[in-house]
């Protein structure tokens, strides 16, 4: 492998460059924001330094436990329920095409109702506790998971199905070791869109019907003209969203490493 070493080091330096660029762009943006807003006297766009002071005062860490943690917990619970129920229902419907066709119009109707539109009803029925938020998140996020699971299950290669029957595989092996993994790229894609819907729903539900949470903090800061506090909450949302996405990408690249590998091979 005489040719390998310089080639590899070129790849490495390319990666390093990309990493630098990824760090550089947001750094430049933050520095610009900092400098341009430094002398701002606008009530609505306070200097970044002021926002950061609010951020430190509120979120590091006096309100983190009381407001950020419940938001994240509710999001996690709702998302988990939607994932489990969406995959289980999707498997059933995907394997039983007749049933899937029968419920398709109903599913399309329910899916067309945005989760946030049900907030008034959810408030009436469930109050302002965590149950309401968790239910609303589960409702809002289940659709992409359910529909992608159905699609993924229906798209399993018929050759693989023939292999499974010719080797007399047990039903649980067929489902857990063939159908689910075969459908997993689509299921995970559904989960990714569900996660961003979930963040929207949790913030919105906290703004309207809650006494705590990040959304509640943002809106109540705005109501009391504490504009830097409002921006601080928005910054926190950005950071949390970024971290959640990063974590999800890690989960995805682990679970679908075979799929990524195949795609890389097909491209090369």
């Amino acid at each position, binding site marked *: 492998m005489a040719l390998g070493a310089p080639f590899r080091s070129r790849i490495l330096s390319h990666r390093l460059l990309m990493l630098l660029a990824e760090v550089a762009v947001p750094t430049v943006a933050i520095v610009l924001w900092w400098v341009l807003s430094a002398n701002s006297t606008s009530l609505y766009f306070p200097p970044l330094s002021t926002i950061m002071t609010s951020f430190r005062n509120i979120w590091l860490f006096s309100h983190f436990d009381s407001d950020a943690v419940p938001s994240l917990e509710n999001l996690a619970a709702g998302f988990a329920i939607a994932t489990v129920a969406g995959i289980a229902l999707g498997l059933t419907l995907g394997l039983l095409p007749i049933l899937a066709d029968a419920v398709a119009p109903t599913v399309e109707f329910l899916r067309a109702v945005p989760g946030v539109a049900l907030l008034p009803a959810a408030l009436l029925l469930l109050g302002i506790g965590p149950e309401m938020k968790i239910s609303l998140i589960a409702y809002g996020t289940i659709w992409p998971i359910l529909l992608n699971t159905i699609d993924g299950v229906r798209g399993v290669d018929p*050759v*693989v199905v023939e*292999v499974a029957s010719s080797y*007399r595989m047990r039903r649980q092996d067929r489902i857990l*070791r063939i159908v689910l*993994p075969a459908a997993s790229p689509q299921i995970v894609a559904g989960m990714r869109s569900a996660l961003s819907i979930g963040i929207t729903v949790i913030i919105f539900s906290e703004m309207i019907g809650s006494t705590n949470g990040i959304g509640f903090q943002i809106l109540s800061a705005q109501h009391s003209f504490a504009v830097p506090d409002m921006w601080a909450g928005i910054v926190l949302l950005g950071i949390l969203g970024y971290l959640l996405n990063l974590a999800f990408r890690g989960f995805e690249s682990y679970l679908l490493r075979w*799929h990524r590998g*195949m795609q890389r091979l097909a491209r090369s």
Partner: protein
Amino acid sequence: MTKADVMTNSLVQANVQPSFPILAVSDLSKTYQVGNNLRPVLGGISLRVDRGEFVCIVGPSGAGKSTLLRCIAGLLAPSSGTILLDGQPIHEPPPKLAVVFQDYSRSLMPWMSVAKNVTLPLRSKGYSKREQAERADEALSAVGLTDARSQYPWQLSGGMQQRVAIARALAYEPEALLMDEPFASVDAQTRSDLEDLILGVRDTFGMTVLLVTHDIDESVYLADRVVVMSGSPTMIREEITVDLPGPRDQVSTKLLPRFAELRAHVMTLIREDRVKGL
């Protein structure tokens, strides 16, 4: 892989008893419904395969060879006729049969390692994890793939992937192996290697093989008996006993005048039919 060792044993199998067939197909027909039209594909096929025999079914593409194989595998219900395996009628995929499909890239699970692919069918057989692993190792070493056990199938070449599929079939310990155009998707060199591999495997494991192909040379080279199918709906044109000596060799066997005669005979049968078809 000690292919040479395996090859020297190949006359052991010559001593089979033809009296009780492992597979008996009688008057099998299959008709597909395409819209409002009925399209007969198989028109009354009768076929016997003896224990330990290597039978090749050869015929032009689209002649219903795969349909016949799928019926025998229990994957497709025939429209009429019977299939007996060891005297038992087939209604579902029988445990004594293993199928090797043509398209290895689709028949292997890309999310599982080579070893997991091979052990997957063993899970329903009640073996312990250790027994499963042992059987997989044995089968993988029989096809010369011990080193690839922890790789993903798609990381291997086409020929190696088809060897994984063969190992999966062997680990299942069937009495008969059904192969549907198993070497049609690999290059010529790999193809002849795989042909010799399957001859060796047949000898070591004393297995019955029923192989479908559209390649006339391949059918004559591999088989004890060639079944020529043609027509629409497909019928058996002729069954030809291949009286070539074993062990077969890609160079010397194919140089034999008898090989050329048999090959020419099969080709004539298939071409006659194609001319008629025009």
